[in-house]
């Protein structure tokens, strides 16, 4: 127990220091996935990647949350909602390498008669956005798709582990923010929208999962209270605040019946032993 606490304290301190590099101009460490593997997971026939069982660091150390808040003009309570950092042990699961695309969602609608998203042309998505993540879907739409696909929506912890690996890094690719690694509203101007799901290879997570930062916020199956609200994770094309693109960010949430222009999803599946 003492060893575990020592290790955790060490990790918290170290990560707080490492995180400082990203937004404050201090040279940052590049964290490898704690498994030591640099290679990314293989995609299976369902377009999913295995996330191995084991402990990962979820959330944000209090000290780091306070520093991020102070250095970016926020009251600390906007970020300390992610604290404390916790060691979470998850069983193995598989997760979609990419968020569900318009093309995939079209097949679901065609087979099931499910209502298409409001921004499509009647029952088909515009050709130009076939490989973009499907948006304008609420929690119930996303859940219905997942069930049809024989999958389910991830809980926040699964989503976060798939996004940042085991070492508590800030972004899927590490602790340094890379503007080109995701689709976000870098200029704060109008006219930004989604990108194709494979447009940002620099944004791969330690497991090779793509688009876990930006493009669309992604529905999780759980939320902080009740069935009317669920976590949405990862930031989206509308995001102008780098802090909101962090994998641990949880200051946003979605009303489950809200099919927003910046909400999408991906699915997970159990690993059968």
């Amino acid at each position: 127990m003492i060893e575990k606490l020592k290790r955790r304290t060490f990790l918290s301190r170290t990560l707080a220091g490492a995180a400082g590099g990203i937004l404050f101009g201090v040279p940052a460490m590049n964290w490898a996935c704690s498994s030591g593997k640099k290679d990314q997971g293989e995609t299976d026939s369902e377009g999913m990647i295995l996330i191995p069982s084991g402990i990962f660091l979820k959330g944000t150390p209090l000290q780091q949350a306070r520093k991020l808040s102070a250095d970016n003009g926020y009251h600390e309570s906007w970020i300390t909602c992610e604290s404390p950092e916790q060691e979470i042990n998850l069983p193995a699961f598989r997760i979609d390498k990419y968020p569900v695309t318009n093309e995939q969602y079209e097949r679901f609608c065609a087979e099931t008669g499910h209502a298409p998203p409001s921004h499509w042309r009647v029952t088909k998505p515009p050709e130009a956005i076939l490989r973009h993540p499907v948006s304008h879907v609420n929690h119930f739409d996303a859940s219905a798709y997942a069930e049809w696909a024989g999958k389910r929506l991830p809980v926040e912890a699964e989503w976060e582990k798939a996004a940042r690996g085991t070492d508590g890094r800030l972004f899927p690719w590490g602790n340094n923010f890379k503007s080109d690694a995701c689709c976000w509203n870098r200029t704060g101007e109008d006219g930004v929208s989604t990108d194709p799901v494979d447009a940002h290879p620099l944004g791969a997570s330690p497991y090779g999962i793509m688009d876990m930062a930006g493009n669309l916020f992604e529905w999780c199956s759980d939320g902080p209270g009740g069935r009317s609200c669920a976590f949405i994770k990862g930031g989206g094309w509308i995001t102008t605040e780098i802090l909101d693109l962090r994998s641990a960010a949880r200051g946003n949430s979605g009303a489950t019946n809200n099919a927003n222009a910046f909400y999408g999803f991906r699915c997970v599946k159990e690993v059968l032993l």
Partner: protein
Amino acid sequence: MNSQIQFTGQPDGMNAQITRVPGFKDDLFNLNYPEAIGPTDNPRYHTTIKCSWKELENGDWKCTGKVEGILEYTIDVKVYKDTVDFYQKLTNQSMEIWSQTMAFNCFNNGSAVSVRDHECKRHWVRTRGEFRKLIELPRVFGPRPALQLYSVEGAPPGKDIPFVESFRSTPENTFIEGWMAIRSRDGNHLVATVSKPALYTFQNREYSCIHSAPSFGALKPGESGRAFSRLYFVEANLEDWYQRMKEELDVIDPTGDF
């Protein structure tokens, strides 16, 4: 009336839209007036209210709403050059004494591209005599993290307003003035919502909406209360707008018979 602003109310619901606002090119502002109304310990939601908007011959708009045997309300709307005014009247038609009343009026900026601010970085409030960005104020991680309610200076604290307390999203010991404003992306314009008297304020990152909730006071069975709300769509800096707003609201009597 001298206004280009287009106000359009929905004939069979609470929704209204504001478009063609000078300085806010192509922006669409959605209103849900009110999403809930009545006593703060048991307000009636729009889903249970029969309400409708109607355009009057003089170009003004009027909304009437009713829950049989419980409440009745009217909202008279006047549109000006860069403001939209809401004169609201609530009548207690129940047999109960309402010690505290309110309207939950939503000013939704999610379709106003030049204004919307889902991250609250351009949201402004005023507390203890100072302008503050909303992100500088405490936030409570409640059951719906995207939204937050704030107690208003001079009004009861949020914990003493059952409707507010039910959200479990109001920071203690933080009181702001009864308005919220969002600066436009270009920094030259702002929109704001203000009420007199204001009971609490609200914002929701999900919709980029802001609320200034008017209070109708305590109402005995059969009694009516009145409140005033105004939306601003101005080309001005925060300080100049604030000065103007204070001067204008000082001379408005929300309890008057409008």
